[in-house]
């Protein structure tokens, strides 16, 4: 998208920008970027995600100045932050709850993209980069949760790293390599700390690519129709800076509620017990944002011929494959959905199935938090099968047979003539 040229009036600024046009780049990104004028509040979540990432990086850098990545000292150093470091309790509360807030924002951002067809041509790369960011976020959050070295830290790390042992032939070697030894221990904690510090900056890099890709094709919009003329757009500043600030105010209010009035609600009490390799907690559960994937992981049974002993893929390996596939299937979504209409507003069937998918993920979230016994594994399996069916069966079929509603001519004339 062509942006209005950056023409600084100040001669010093002009001198600088002529030699290093970074100011022009920023101007084109945050000031003159032409955005569709009909974006609704669901479009706020992109900028909120960027802010949430910045909050995590800033609080994390300060926390790292007071934290000690050693099995004998990590737990106590976190308590030192909570008790003795000036406003350490605040920094840690922001960082720990900030992770949850980041996921809420990013999941909403993803569902917005799903609903309004933002993944469809010509924005496939933008979407795929988003999936990469989500994977990096998950790795970062998982390793961050290990650092306080409480019981859930230790046992969560043990369970998740053990997943890799399901890989045939090289699985055990990979696990030993990840651990830096023969169990989750000090080398594991050290490397997790190192990577937890590194990955957020990798995320920043991919976010820059994500925004770059966005600005090549321009934002999608609730109608899903292309921008046709200048009339359809407004400049990012002041229109969307003003709107994003309003969203930011509301976001910070919600964020602050958790930070100041319910800081431990989204955590697990067991993580206030120092890690103990000799005592396994009764129920090892990941953080809430991993629960649907954890449910998929645990729901998949042995894959083989029913009513015989023949097993092709063991449940553990099948579960691991399913868990990773559940995220990677998003990468191919742009090619599974054949419809030429983007927004689910004009796609009655897609609209219905969107809500069923969301309900399915709520069910999987609940299942992920339950012990794998009784009725739960069955519900989890049904939920898992439905999840994949949505993308691999329902979406390709629906997008071919669906009778879409007539599209408006343009963003400026949303009423169909």
């Amino acid at each position: 998208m062509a942006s209005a040229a950056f023409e600084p009036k100040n001669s010093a600024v002009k001198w600088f920008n002529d030699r290093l046009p970074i100011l022009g780049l920023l101007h084109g990104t945050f000031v003159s970027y032409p955005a569709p004028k009909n974006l609704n509040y669901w479009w706020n979540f992109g900028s909120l995600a960027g802010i949430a990432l910045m909050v995590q990086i800033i609080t994390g850098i300060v926390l790292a100045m007071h934290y000690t990545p050693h099995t004998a000292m990590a737990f106590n150093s976190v308590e030192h932050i909570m008790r003795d470091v000036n406003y350490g309790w605040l920094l840690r509360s922001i960082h720990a709850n900030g992770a949850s807030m980041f996921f809420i924002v990013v999941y909403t951002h993803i569902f917005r993209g799903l609903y309004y067809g933002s993944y469809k041509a010509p924005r496939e790369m933008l979407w795929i980069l988003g999936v990469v960011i989500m994977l990096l976020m998950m790795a970062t959050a998982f390793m961050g949760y290990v650092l306080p070295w409480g019981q859930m830290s230790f046992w969560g790390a043990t369970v998740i790293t053990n997943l890799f042992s399901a890989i045939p032939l090289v699985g055990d070697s990979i696990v030993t390599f990840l651990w830096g030894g023969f169990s989750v221990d000090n080398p594991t904690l050290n490397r997790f700390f190192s990577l937890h510090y590194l990955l957020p900056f990798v995320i920043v890099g991919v976010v820059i690519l994500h925004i770059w890709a966005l600005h090549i094709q321009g934002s999608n919009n609730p109608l899903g129709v292309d921008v046709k003329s200048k009339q359809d757009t407004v400049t990012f500043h002041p229109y969307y800076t003003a709107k994003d600030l309003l969203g930011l105010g509301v976001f910070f209010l919600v964020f602050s509620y958790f930070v100041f009035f319910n800081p431990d609600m989204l955590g697990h009490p067991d993580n206030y017990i120092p890690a103990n390799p000799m005592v396994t907690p009764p129920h090892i559960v990941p953080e809430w944002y991993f629960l649907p994937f954890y449910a998929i992981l645990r729901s998949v049974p042995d894959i083989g011929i029913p009513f015989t002993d023949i097993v092709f893929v063991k449940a553990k390996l099948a579960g691991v494959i399913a868990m990773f596939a559940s995220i990677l299937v998003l990468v191919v979504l742009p090619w599974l959905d054949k419809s030429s209409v983007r927004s689910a507003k004009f796609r009655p069937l897609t609209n219905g199935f969107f809500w069923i998918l969301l309900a399915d993920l709520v069910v999987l979230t609940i299942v992920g938090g339950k012990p794998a016994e009784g009725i739960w594994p069955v519900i989890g399996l049904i939920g898992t099968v439905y999840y994949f069916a949505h993308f691999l069966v329902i979406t390709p079929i629906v997008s071919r047979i669906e009778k879409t509603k007539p599209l408006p001519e343009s963003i400026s004339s949303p009423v169909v003539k």
Partner: protein
Amino acid sequence: MKMTFKTTLVSALIATAGVMGFTSVASAAGNAEHPKQVNWSFKGFTGTFDRAAQQRGFQVYKEVCSACHGLSQVAFRTLTDIGFSEEQVKVIAAEYTMEDGPNDDGDMFERPGAPSDKFPSPFPNENAAKASNGGAFPPDLSLITKARVDGNNYLYSLLTGYEDAPEGFDVGSLNYNKYFAGHKIAMAAPLYEDSVEYADGTPATVEQMAHDVVTFLAWAAEPHLEERHNLGVRVMIFLLFLTVIFFFSNRAVWREVKGKK
């Protein structure tokens, strides 16, 4: 459609959060009875600790709990938070004996505690603690109210929940307490009527002592709780004003564009 999208997503999120909260409570509690719900002074947006209860609770910890349970994260100096003067803290700290050293001769030595020390633990290590307690490890109490689901209520219920085992329920050498997962707990009932004698004349019933020691331990687990509430209220008011300003500025910015439609 827009409204449906918003409202449905919001209610889905709330439902998820609600169910998850319920899930963790249900799964972690096992077959234990749901704890009694106590109205704590430090709950809510402006909750603060009851200083008198904290000090009485400290007395209960010192005279009863500390025989077996450590409080290793808490420094004596922080006792000024619960209303003791610096002089009183010095006296309290000096009642404890700390191992220090090595001195110039390379020997470890003992000295009276100082405000900068943390509470010494009753046992040198976990094995020693287990050996003295029939194989059960009395956990450190520094974070106990945070380390259990619904911790304050749970601890209160546990301390006041000792009763005779029902007919046919074999507790062996352990004790019956329906608030404990499995109902068999190694710790014998720690509190009895007048286990301590309160200086302020408060009758030392089991319920009173349990209430007081939980108040003290809630502070021990989170000494900055009052500061958190205090700052939180101010931050929320500030953000509310800011958001209102953002609301009106956003409306003003968009007025022209919206009008054109």
